[in-house]
């Protein structure tokens, strides 16, 4: 798209993503991913599944996350997913997905609705048991759970044993970062 003259800010308010290491874990603000929600129109789930498959977009089952480069997605609600794609190539995420699904799905740009903080390192279960009601120790890789963290609604996505994304509302990014930092200092 055309080169406009406005400069973006990261959800945490910086011009570059925030990052912090506490004990064995590192918190990283992730901004290079574009998001769009994809909801199947009534009775058109099969079409949506087929188009997604053809385009190489994963549409995982309930409570699940799945990556298939360049796309990834996690389940939001019945017949509804959050699709991730590289920001550099899919900045206008809705426009990028419309050709794939046509009028079989309702697609909404969600990139800027969220802040994503990736927590990486050892001992994540010990950290998350002080944060939210997700049993990280037994949750399989690819588990994606929406829950509450210090009064904030978040998605907790277990991308790997040592990588968990916490995705929360952009407006409370600072509060979310603070909660993760405080808990990390408390645990480690």
């Amino acid at each position, binding site marked *: 798209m055309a080169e406009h003259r406005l400069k973006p800010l990261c959800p945490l308010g910086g011009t570059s993503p925030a990052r912090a290491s506490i004990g064995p874990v590192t918190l990283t603000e992730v901004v290079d991913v574009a998001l769009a929600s994809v909801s199947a129109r009534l009775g058109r789930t099969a079409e949506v599944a087929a188009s997604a498959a053809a385009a190489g977009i994963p549409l995982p089952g*309930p*409570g699940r996350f799945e990556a298939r480069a360049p796309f990834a997605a996690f389940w939001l609600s*019945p017949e509804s997913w959050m699709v991730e794609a590289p920001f550099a190539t899919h900045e206008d995420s809705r426009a990028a997905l419309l050709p794939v699904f046509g009028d079989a799905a309702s697609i909404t740009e969600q990139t800027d609705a969220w802040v994503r903080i990736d927590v990486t390192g050892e001992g994540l279960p010990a950290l998350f048991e002080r944060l939210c*009601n997700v049993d990280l120790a037994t949750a399989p890789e690819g588990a994606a759970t929406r*829950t*509450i963290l210090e009064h904030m*609604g978040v998605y907790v996505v277990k991308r790997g044993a040592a990588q968990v994304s916490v995705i929360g509302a952009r407006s409370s990014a600072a509060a979310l970062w603070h909660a993760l930092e405080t808990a990390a200092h408390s645990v480690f």
Partner: protein
Amino acid sequence: MIINHPILGPRDSQEFVYLGDAALIDRPDGLAEGALDTFHDYLYLRDNPAGLHRELWYHEQGDRSWLVVTRNTLTHEITQVELARDVARARGRSK
């Protein structure tokens, strides 16, 4: 309490918002004769049983499903959880 979500499995009730008696699904026709009376009974009167109660919970901090939960109001034991959308269709609701 723990609500055994039909799609997501056991989730803490803290993630949910409670509305009330699942009979609220049976909304009368507002354009029918005598709607004023049927709506009064529909909106204001409750069985409020001491025992099994079918009630609406919304998974607001979850997948945004409305559920019909069958729960014992004396013991809090939950014996059935269904998607409200399925219940609504089964009760003849459509558009």
